């Protein structure tokens, strides 16, 4: 009998609340290295990971080469961050990138030749708040019984505040990716407008 695949949270008795979930799919010319660097720099700057590659939570980087269809890339990042004021809360940010048909190509833009890629990247992002991630309450004989009431009644507004904060942070990441892809953005201040380079094609 094959082993059962365990759920990351529920099978370990962890409670979580989704804050945001979205995907961005873009089939056009772009630069894969820029996109990867943009995502990496953003998560490092926002405190989701350290710059040290050894500890960076990249769980998968799969690069599959094909002769005709172009390359395929899978990237899984599982980022976590402690809430500033209280270690009881943990924010989780899951980033999955899947690129298909990735090919090297060259384009002319304003009289200059650029080395770019053509392909279809898809960035999927999930952000969640995890409560009691160390399972201290879960293991405690009295606190485990109070947990439900505590979440539903006492810290309900606090949960909403944390959810809102994570929601905003997730959408700022979306804004940074959309700015790079030159897609419509909505936030009053465009994320990553000056620091990150935009793709070198109109």
């Amino acid at each position: 009998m094959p082993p059962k695949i365990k759920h990351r949270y529920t099978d370990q008795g962890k409670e979580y609340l989704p804050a945001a979930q979205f995907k961005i799919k873009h089939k056009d010319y772009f630069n894969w290295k820029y996109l990867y660097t943009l995502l990496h720099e953003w998560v490092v700057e926002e405190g989701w990971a350290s710059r040290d590659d050894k500890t960076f939570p990249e769980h998968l980087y799969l690069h599959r080469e094909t002769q005709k269809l172009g390359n395929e890339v899978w990237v899984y990042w599982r980022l976590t961050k402690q809430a500033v004021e209280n270690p009881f809360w943990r924010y989780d940010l899951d980033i999955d990138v899947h690129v298909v048909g990735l090919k090297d190509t060259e384009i002319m833009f304003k009289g200059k030749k650029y080395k770019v890629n053509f392909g279809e990247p898809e960035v999927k992002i999930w952000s969640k708040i995890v409560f009691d991630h160390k399972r201290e309450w879960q293991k405690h004989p009295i606190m485990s019984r109070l947990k439900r009431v505590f979440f539903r009644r006492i810290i309900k507004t606090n949960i909403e505040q944390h959810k809102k904060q994570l929601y905003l942070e997730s959408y700022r990441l979306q804004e940074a990716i959309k700015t790079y892809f030159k897609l419509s953005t909505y936030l009053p201040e465009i994320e990553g407008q000056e620091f990150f380079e935009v793709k070198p094609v109109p």
Partner: protein
Amino acid sequence: MSPKTIDYRNARYIPAIKFEGIFDMNSLLKKMRAWIIANWFEFHETSVKHKVPTPEGAEQEFEWWGVRKVNDYVKYHLDIFIKFWNLHDVEVVREGQKKKLQSAKLLVETTGRVQLDWSDRFGGSQFLQNLADFYNTYIVKKSIDMVWTDKFYYDIYRFHQLIKEQLDFETKSNAYEMDQA
């Protein structure tokens, strides 16, 4: 058993908006988003897609989801699907000023869902589920039909109207707000 989610697709028809012409895409999307937020919905852009531009233009697709807690029992869900075909920039002179607008074919589909018992108070045993059925059918039936779903239905029509105004349609009002016509 009474349904836990009342879906307008099965109940009342919300017409889709189709448009072909010149419009300000950024302003349209920003105003739609602003309306959703101003009406106390939590805004989620669940999907964004962009396809490589052909000589006729690009193809873009947006899926939005707005969610609003009305009370501890009722939640509104607003599902919006926006698609642009042949999207490209055009320069237009309006009132003596040059403006960068967009030309495209556009489709906007709006759907509403009213979710009951979202906090799962009646989610436990079969007895509680039967109790929820009784509660929905006999106790809050009028509120479901005449207060929550009705109000949301007209809210969606107001949202519809906003899109029509932005796209400068000939009929900028809806059947329920004739006084503004």
